[in-house]
Each structure stands twice: as C-alpha cells, then as structure tokens.
C-alpha cells in the first residue's frame, strides 16, 4: 500500500511540475524500489541492535526511497533547493523535508569566489554521497561514517565558503575554505550512543523520527550555536581531499521540557577521493571524535563516549556498469558511565560491502548490493542475544531517475 501511495505521489508531483518546468525551475527525483533478503538480528530501525537497515522481519519488496528535489533559481545568484523524501517506513511524517536551503553564489570577479548557504543542508564531508538528494553513487548503503552523518546531522544555519579558483587561473586545482554556524542539532550523538555505528541509507528527515525508540535530531536545546570549519583541495581532475572539524558546542547538561537532551558532539574527519583515470575511483575517509551528555543523576559524572570509524573503497566503472568494494571499521568506547543500560555500549565492528550498478538508460538504474557486518556490542545481552553478531543483507534495487526543466 505504501508503495502504491508513494508511486501515486511521485506521478502527481511529476505531472504538476512538468507543466510549469522552465529554466528557472528544475526538478530532480528518484524512485527506488527494492527487494531485500537479510539475515541476523532485528534492525536498529525496528527496535533491535542490528546495524543494517532491514532485517528478516522487514525485508522483501520495499520502497527504498522516493524523493523530489526542486530547485528554483530566484535570481542569477540566488537559488532555493529542497529535497522532499519518503521512505515508506514508520517515520512520523510519511513525506518530509530532508534539506531546504537558499544557495547564494555570486559570479567570481577574481580568482576568489564566495558562496553562502542558509537553511537546512548536509555538511560538506562525504566523498561518497555526491548524487542528487545526497545519494551514494558507489553503492546503495553508504559507509558507517556517512550513514551516521545522514542519520544524525543536518546543518540548520548558515555556511560560508570561499574558493580559490586555481583551475581557472592556470594552477593545479581549486582550494576551498568552509565554515558554518548552526543550531537545532543538539541531539546529534544520541543514536550513536544508543546503537553504535550503523550501515544504512535511511537518513533522517528534518521533522521526522528515526530508530526505535524514535529519536528526533533537529531540536534546539541549549541556545548555544555550533560550528564546523573545513578545507578542501581539488588537485587537477584526479584528487579531492577534504578535512572538517565539527563541534556543536552543546551544553551537555541542557534539556528541553519535552525531553530532548543536548549532546556535546565533536569530531575531526579527513578523506580523499582519488580518480587516476576514467575507470577507477578510490576513496578513504576517517572520523574520530567524542560525545557527552549529563547522567541521569545530578551527582554522577558526565556520560562520555569516544568513537572512531574509517572506510576504504575501490570502484571500477566501465560503459554502463560499476563495481564497488568497501571495507568499514568502526568503534565506540564509553569512558564514563553506561548509557541506557547495564552493559557498556562499546562497539567494535567491521563490514564488507560489494555493489554492482548498471545503467541501461539515462533514467533507469539497476543496483545490487551485499553487505556483511560483524560487530561486538554488549547491550545485546539485554535482548538475550550473543554480544557478537554477524549480519548480512542482500538488496536488489530498481531506480527511476529524472530531471525536468534543467
């Protein structure tokens, strides 16, 4: 039923926009339908400690994702972007926004070009998620690092970038510095403390909930603005390096009357994407940080957890096909207090992902992916499960993609 409703919604949206599409208004979108087969424990989305999006009780034929991404060019240098999502699961809102922002990008009058974003958008950290709607172009499921970014983070505020256009000035590439000030994201870190890292393409939406019990990530709790600062370097058309320092500067003792806690989350991330020729892509990214929040009792020390995750990816593209292999490793370690239970939520895990994509035409894409994740997570004893679990998930996806009025 959800599939049918989503398809109807998509067709309706297409019909409305096709009539009004013009150069100042564009519309991108995907409809992703999947068949999956999963083994192992119940997914974190359905009340278990499983790392994967699906589980044996929730696989088969499902809606992977459907989104519409309208862009309205208000003036030559100002445009409004939005991504409207539905995942067909038990999100609070069947249809929700995952991004909505103004993009201000003046013409460069010198080799320095500035750009500003205002609204709600993803931070510039992932080297995998470069497709419309932040889709991973190398596999269905992003790495543990970027699964977490999609689940818990959205910049709700202002981002400013200044880019030195070296490629247009006779130099080896472009250099960009980026910084942002934001709020409404203090719960970021709570899912990681609760579940550890996951491997899931089910990103959060701005007004929805994720996980079970449900968590909403986009609330202002302490009125302290957070920030991030980053740098990126494009070296010729071969190499892109990104580094980012993130700190939401949350007051770990703050909480709202409605029960949302502030988590002081900070991390450093660095990654590189290397494309030596037409066929090969190599990506590596690592993230290291900590999160803390107040304990239940006032006289107890702060709950403090450190975490780190990394992945390496190799992808080979030829004609209409692409094959990708990725290795993920991820760890969380609670330094003080236990959160949410008697066993420490210390996670140690790794995962292998193999993906194959085929694009028979401009609008159609077929994807197949196999993920195997093995992890140790003591809170599983609360569910009478073994601490060490191995899960695997096979997915077959058919995607219809379109762009109108561009």
């Amino acid at each position, binding site marked *: 039923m959800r599939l049918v409703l989503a398809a109807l919604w998509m067709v309706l949206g297409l019909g409305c926009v096709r009539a009004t599409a013009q150069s100042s208004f564009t519309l991108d979108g995907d409809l992703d339908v999947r068949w999956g087969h999963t083994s192992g424990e119940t997914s974190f989305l359905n009340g278990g400690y499983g790392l994967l999006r699906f589980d044996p009780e929730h696989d088969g034929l499902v809606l992977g994702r459907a989104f519409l991404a309208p862009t309205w060019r208000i003036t030559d240098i100002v445009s409004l972007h939005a991504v409207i999502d539905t995942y067909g699961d038990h999100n609070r809102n069947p249809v929700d926004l995952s991004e909505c922002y103004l993009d201000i990008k003046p013409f460069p009058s010198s080799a320095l070009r500035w750009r500003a974003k205002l609204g709600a958008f*993803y931070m510039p950290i992932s080297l995998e998620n470069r497709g419309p*709607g*932040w889709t991973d172009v190398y596999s269905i499921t992003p790495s543990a690092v970027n699964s977490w970014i999609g689940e818990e983070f959205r910049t709700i505020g202002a981002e400013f970038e200044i880019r030195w256009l070296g490629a247009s000035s006779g130099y080896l590439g472009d250099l960009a510095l980026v910084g942002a000030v934001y709020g409404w994201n203090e719960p970021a870190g709570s899912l990681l403390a609760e579940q550890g890292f996951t491997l899931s393409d089910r990103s959060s939406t701005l007004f929805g909930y994720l996980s079970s019990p449900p968590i909403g990530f986009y609330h202002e709790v302490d009125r302290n603005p957070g920030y991030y600062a980053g740098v990126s370097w494009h070296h010729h*058309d071969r190499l892109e390096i990104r580094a980012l320092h993130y700190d939401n500067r949350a007051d770990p003792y703050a909480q709202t009357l409605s029960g949302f806690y502030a988590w002081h989350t900070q991390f450093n991330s660095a990654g590189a994407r290397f494309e030596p020729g037409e066929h090969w892509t190599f990506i590596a990214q690592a993230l290291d940080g900590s999160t803390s929040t107040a304990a239940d009792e006032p006289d107890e020390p702060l709950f403090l957890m450190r975490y780190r995750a990394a992945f390496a990816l190799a992808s080979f593209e030829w004609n209409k096909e692409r094959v990708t292999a990725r290795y993920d490793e991820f760890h969380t370690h609670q330094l003080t207090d236990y959160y949410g239970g008697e066993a420490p939520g210390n996670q140690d895990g790794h995962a292998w992902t193999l993906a194959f994509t085929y694009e028979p035409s401009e609008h159609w894409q077929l994807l197949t992916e196999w993920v195997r994740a093995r992890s140790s997570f003591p809170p599983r004893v609360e569910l009478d499960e073994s601490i060490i679990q191995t899960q695997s998930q096979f997915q077959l996806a058919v995607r219809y993609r379109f*762009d109108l009025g561009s």
Partner: protein
Amino acid sequence: MSPIFQQSATRNPPRARIGMRAGAIATWITLSCFCAAPYCVASNLSIEVFDRNGHSVDQAMVELVPASGSPAPVPKPAVMDQKDKAFTPEVLAVSVGSSVDFPNNDSVSHQVYSFSAAKRFQLPLYKGQLHPPVIFDTPGLVVLGCNIHDSMVGYIYVTAAPFFGTTDAHGVLALKDLPKGDYRITLLSPYITDDASSLTRSVHIEADSTTERFQLKLPLRTRPEPRPRRRDWDY
C-alpha cells in the same frame, strides 16, 4: 578544428551578381595590392604537434607573426558552443576585436563567466542563444567558466597575429596561401607544460609546401578542473 586565419581577397571570388567589369576591376586592385607587399608567392604551411610519446596533440593554438611586421588583424565572428556540460571547442582562437557567440545547446542552463585580465564578462543564466556576442578586444588568454558547473572550463586565445589556428585531432594545423617570408611561430596550449622558449621559433617559408614539427619533451597537463559527471551534485 578548422584553421582560422586572415583570408586574402583571392580566396573570396567575386559573387556572381557582380558584373564582369566590376569583377575585373576588383581582381586587378587585389592583385596590385598583393604584389605591392613583400610577399609575392603563396605557400602552404603545415604545423604538427606531438607529445613526448609521439601522440598527436590537438587543440593547441599556433600563431604566426611575419618578421617584416604584421598587417592589422581582421576580426571574424566565432562561436563557443556549450554541449554536454562542456565548452565546444575547448580551445578557441580568435583575432583581436572578434565577436564570439556563446549559444547554449545543452540540456541544462549555464552561467558563463571569465575573470581573466584579457576579458572580464558574465552571461547570466540562459539556454539557447539569449545573449548578444561578446567582443574580445584585448590580446591574451581568456579562461571561461560556468558558475553552476565547475567542471566546465574553456579557453579563448585572443591574438593580434595575422595567421593562426588550432591543431586538429591529428595534431595538425594546415595554413594555406601563406605569403612566403620569415615568420615567428608560437605554440600555445593550456595543457602543454614545456618551457615557453621551446615553443616559439623562427622559420623561413620559401618552398610551396613546408612542414614544421613541434616535439614536446614534457608530459601534457591533465585537466585542472573537476571531472564532469552527469548527475553530480554539489555536496
């Protein structure tokens, strides 16, 4: 890439509707002017450019300046097209004072700009042929970009030389009906990394047909801009 060079009147036969008498007068004037110049016989010059592995180098701009002084360059309209999120041709050579059209025959809109000293301009968001041609009135290299698609970079060489062009897919530029004499040949390309002094030379063109070969010693530079992708978003 077809060569672009200043054309003598002998390459433009009088149109049929001009009467026989007027045509004869025009021809006489043309020939008189031509023979008054220090060059009396035309020659064909072929310039070949090869990289260090012997592969042909296309889209290299070649300009020829006569040692005895250049006649004033003659502006000629040119076109820098946009298709598949790329400038076509990637390298365009025009005479100083020329107007260049920037039609957008792509499926997406573009915002073309340049902040090069030789020409600063902006063409706000458009598709098709919305904007009037841009006049390039200062010699030098003009680097083009698109403010929406950073992977789009194009090059326009604006030259005051009377004879010029860009090499084709075989690495060859053929200049026909070139007056015999001494010239300074200069090779220009955004991708050639050889020392500039090795890319310019003096030649004496005497024979009816001459070939000049540029053999590069250093590897070509890869594209400095990001690789274009059809559905890449700016995340």
